[in-house]
């Protein structure tokens, strides 16, 4: 079980020293920041963009718990019997953009708006060939935990 997990969305993250950060894009005319990267500004209608790193930490802006097994295209491979509810929310990054993400916490029913959140990777799927797939996620940072 020590095989490497494959990332379902490799273009959304980039190395930042020894860890990862999210990557979006920035309109070269009005400066609006987007995630995922795009090529059409919905504010000023410009079409030239530059890569823009978004960082790896933010604060929780809103949250919910996905309480039932989503239909396709969700592909975790779970069944109604094995499904585990997961957290979903928006995390506000330092630039002000809010990123929608799966959320990880010891008790996802006790998440709170304003909590500090840290980017991580979450294994969410094992396919028919046994390949493990991961996606980006944000993990609640406990106030008294040591920084990594």
């Amino acid at each position, binding site marked *: 079980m020590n095989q490497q997990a494959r990332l*379902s*969305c490799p273009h*959304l993250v980039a190395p930042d020293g020894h860890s990862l950060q999210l990557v*979006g894009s920035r309109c070269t005319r009005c400066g*609006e*920041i*987007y*995630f*995922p990267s795009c090529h059409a500004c*919905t*504010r000023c209608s410009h079409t030239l963009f530059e890569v823009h790193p978004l960082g790896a930490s933010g604060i929780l*802006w*809103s*949250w*919910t*718990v*996905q*309480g*039932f097994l*989503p*239909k*396709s*295209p*969700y*592909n*975790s491979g779970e069944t109604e019997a094995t499904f585990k509810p*997961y957290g*979903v*929310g*928006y995390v506000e990054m330092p*630039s*002000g*953009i*809010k*990123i*929608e*993400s*799966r959320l990880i916490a010891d008790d996802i*029913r006790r998440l709170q*708006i304003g909590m500090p959140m840290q980017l991580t990777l979450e294994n*969410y*799927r094992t396919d028919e060939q046994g390949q493990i797939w991961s*996606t980006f996620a944000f993990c609640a940072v406990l106030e008294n935990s040591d920084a990594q």
Partner: protein
Amino acid sequence: MRNDVAIIGVGMHQFGRTEGVSGLEQGAVAVRNALLDAGLTWQQVGVAYGGSQDAGNADALTNLLGLTGLPFVNVANGCATGGSALASVIAAIQSGMADIGVAVGFDKHPRGAFNPQPSQWGLEDWYGETGLMLTTQFFALKTQRYMHDHGLSEDALIRSAQRAFRNGSINPQAWRQRELSYEEIANSAPVSLPLRKFMFCNPGEGGAALVLCKSADAHRYTSKPIIVKAAALRSRYHGSFEVFSPSLVADAAQSPTVTASKAAYEAAGVGPSDIDVIQLQDTDSGSELIHIAENGFCEHGEQNHLLRHGQTDIGGRLPVNTDGGCLANGEPVGASGLRQVIEICRQLRQEAGRRQVPGQPKLGYTHVYGAPGVSSVTILQR
């Protein structure tokens, strides 16, 4: 009276689940009932606009109603399909294109939550595959943030659902006609917290249709015409918080509901305090409560008080969703907005039976909001 257009006929096919009857057939039943109500035949209709999300092309209705050569336009505008069809018929009649117009919506959705495909929304596959592409999540996330910002209580969410099912229980055409207790709603399964099972509407089936003409001609067909004082449609803005958003830009903008509402009040020359009976989009209880404020009927945060004191009940100061709304009627997307208009027509015509709002209501209001970020508002007058 300038260039006003009137609703002279309303018709529905029962909402809910009707095995063995296609969505298209349900749309045809709705049109036939609306024509019967107006005392007209399909051969007299000069223009039609209609749509469904999952039940086929509306212009195929001509195969069931009659191939008369009329211009029939298919409308595909998400949750605002009905509202868009209505606004289009009004514009067609005002322009002189036709004397009699029909707006129709119908649908037949599979059971359970919708399962949209990312590519159809301009999104990448990972968004759906990793479990982020659910409408229910969006409504929960919007409600959760609103509760935080404006102190909206869980009590108000429960009372809103309770009122919907109470009104549905006295509406013989509602899908859900069983009244639910406060505890039953409060303890129902968490679908997407803070929203629970009985706080969400279900995709369903049904049909709804309207027949319209110039106000000046309306008394030829009915003694109770309903004048459309305003029909406003708006789509989302840069910064609106909408469904299926992998991110939200730094600065928030208002919802299209706010601007559609303002445009409708301005066109009708009235304000929220003039309205006697109200239909608001209640995809879920949280949405309905947000919409009470976004449409100008209360301040943000005032909803707790309104709900606790029964002010949105049929006998209250602001009667909301008197037919039970989407919670009790389900949401066949194409038909849902026109159902709202029909309920207001019935209220203004004093034909709402046990759910009739007292005091002879004169002005009614309808509001649809949904994917992909569209709002449609009408103001109707007896």
